[in-house]
């Protein structure tokens, strides 16, 4: 720790903090508008200022979005799709993260002939655009009997996620000394014991990174959701789109905004809960502890 010498008031400091404050405001304005609009009445929205606070606060937008709003022909709100998204995201995140951890373990600690080449090729998976795989994936899911199901979506997201999660874990495990594995082998631990008893307990930071990354990716995905799911199994991103685009009568901005907030909330919560690990995990290994 170095002691910072305080020099008191300085114009350059003021300028820097002023700019930072301004930038923060610019980023917060859309969120602010969404939030206040979601609590306004339709009347208020039409007559009032975009930036103004609601004249009378109401949660009608939120309840309507949750359980009454029309997404296409049905008018049951987005609650069902919200749970669809959970049913898709939670298994997909956990499975892809565990697979990535396992891949990373093998690719860093049990190298086989050509394992580096294998890893290099796996990394291509990070760069394949979603659109490229739509048709072949649709055919595959059809043949597996998983078309238009949540399980099918889980499978797609796991396959797409494994490239990233493997990259995370492999690079994390590479920094862990091999002597640890050797010591465990001499202690009598086998392949799986070493993974579950030695390496996994050390993986919390990178586990959180993988969790946040995968949760955000999968929860926010629209393309796979709209292509590979239909009707009751659609995720919330698709439902949100349908809700906003369903035009019967007057546009209810408060409902749209509330629905969008609901759709965005889980990723926000995940980041707030696990965020400190995210920063730590990204820099883990850069400094030897």
């Amino acid at each position, binding site marked *: 720790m170095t002691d910072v010498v305080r020099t008191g008031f300085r114009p350059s400091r003021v300028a820097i903090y002023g700019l930072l404050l301004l930038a923060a405001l610019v980023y917060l304005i859309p969120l602010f508008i969404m939030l206040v609009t979601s609590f306004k009445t339709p009347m208020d929205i039409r007559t009032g200022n975009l930036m103004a606070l609601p004249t009378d606060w109401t949660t009608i937008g939120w309840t309507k979005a949750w359980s009454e709003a029309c997404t296409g022909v049905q008018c049951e709100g987005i609650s069902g799709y919200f749970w669809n998204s959970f049913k898709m995201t939670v298994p997909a995140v956990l499975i892809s993260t565990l697979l990535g951890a396992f891949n990373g373990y093998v690719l860093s600690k049990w190298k086989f002939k050509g394992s580096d080449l294998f890893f290099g090729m796996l990394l291509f998976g990070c760069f394949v655009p979603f659109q490229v795989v739509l048709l072949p994936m649709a055919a595959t899911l059809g043949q597996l009997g998983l078309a238009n199901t949540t399980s099918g979506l889980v499978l797609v997201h796991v396959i797409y996620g494994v490239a990233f999660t493997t990259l995370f874990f492999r690079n994390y495990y590479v920094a862990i*000394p091999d002597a640890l594995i050797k010591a465990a082998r001499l*202690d009598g631990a086998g392949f799986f014991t070493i993974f579950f008893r030695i390496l996994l307990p*050390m993986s919390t930071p990178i586990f959180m990174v993988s969790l946040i990354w995968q949760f955000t990716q999968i929860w926010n995905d629209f393309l796979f959701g709209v292509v590979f799911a239909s009707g009751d199994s659609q995720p919330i991103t698709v439902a949100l789109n349908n809700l906003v685009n369903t035009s019967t009568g007057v546009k209810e901005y408060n409902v749209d905004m509330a629905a969008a907030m609901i759709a965005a909330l889980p990723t926000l919560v995940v980041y707030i809960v696990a965020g400190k690990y995210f920063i730590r995990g990204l820099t883990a290994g850069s400094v030897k502890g």
Partner: protein
Amino acid sequence: MSQLELRSIRKTYPGVAEETLKGIDIDIASGEFLILVGPSGCGKSTLMNTIAGLETITDGSIVLDGKDISTMEPKDRDIAMVFQSYALYPTMSVRENIAFGLKIRGLPKHEIDQEVERVADLLQISQLLNKKPANLSGGQQQRVAMGRALARRPRIYLFDEPLSNLDAKLRVEMRTEIKKLHQRLKTTIVYVTHDQIEAMTLADRIAVLKDGELQQLGTPKEVYDRPENLFVAGFMGSPAMSFVPVTVEQREGGLQAEVRGNDGRAVKLPVPEFLADRVGKKVILGIRPEHITQPQDQKNDQTLVAKGEFTIEVTEPTGPDVIALIQLNDTNVHCRIDPEHPVTWGETAELMFDMKKVVFFDPETEKRIAPH
């Protein structure tokens, strides 16, 4: 307590042209403390890893108590290892670290607890049992690493440069501790180091390796006093042995070899009779610092002792001695002088050569010329 035989161990890494181990033969007696020593890249760590089973051997066999274990998995060999980096499991407490191997082997809980207590007492780490490795000092981590090895009561202990991450003072302390531990437990230990002082002080026998070949296997005294070749002679001892090219001459009164200081003054050194068949030939005189001292009166009448005056080029006081540098036949030579007999650099001093323990090497083969 177990006996280990290494029979012509060969190891070639895939894609590497040169063999890493070129047929190593060592028999390690039960309860013996064997040290593998050599410069980095000599294959000593590879040899140790093959004993542990962490690396396979290309040819030869490893026999433990009469049983060939060459192809066994590490966990089936009943061998424990202490690593240079300690390799403690960071998420486990000291207690769990020590108990891990016992748990895996399915020992009942009360036996594990008993064993952990025993080891903790032995190494005086009882008060650390509930701490995590990250909260321990280097010396404490070192003890825990040894505790983990001791807990299983394996047949052989392997130490892979266990002291090289400690600071100088702690290293000397732990060295003594390891020696005490070995004397008490009478375990068979194979210990790798590149530090020749560690090798000299700890070993029952030393195996000196270079380029995957065994150069010499013997007690510390054998290796120090009668090194097989120039490499071993130069590697063991600090400051190192000096090598002076000399020609053997026949004079009245015996064989002699002439050395010339940098001021041109020559001194005839008496050399032993076994060099008789080398008269007129060049040999390399291997002389250790302690063989050249200030004049000592009690040695005046002894055979194979000579005196001469030389210019001191550098003096390095170490406390108990002063290491002085002189030139003999254009080679730097270290002398060990009693600090009570001050010598000054740049001035001449009378020095005494005790030729009884010097060694001679053949300049062609670099092997020691043995007395017949």
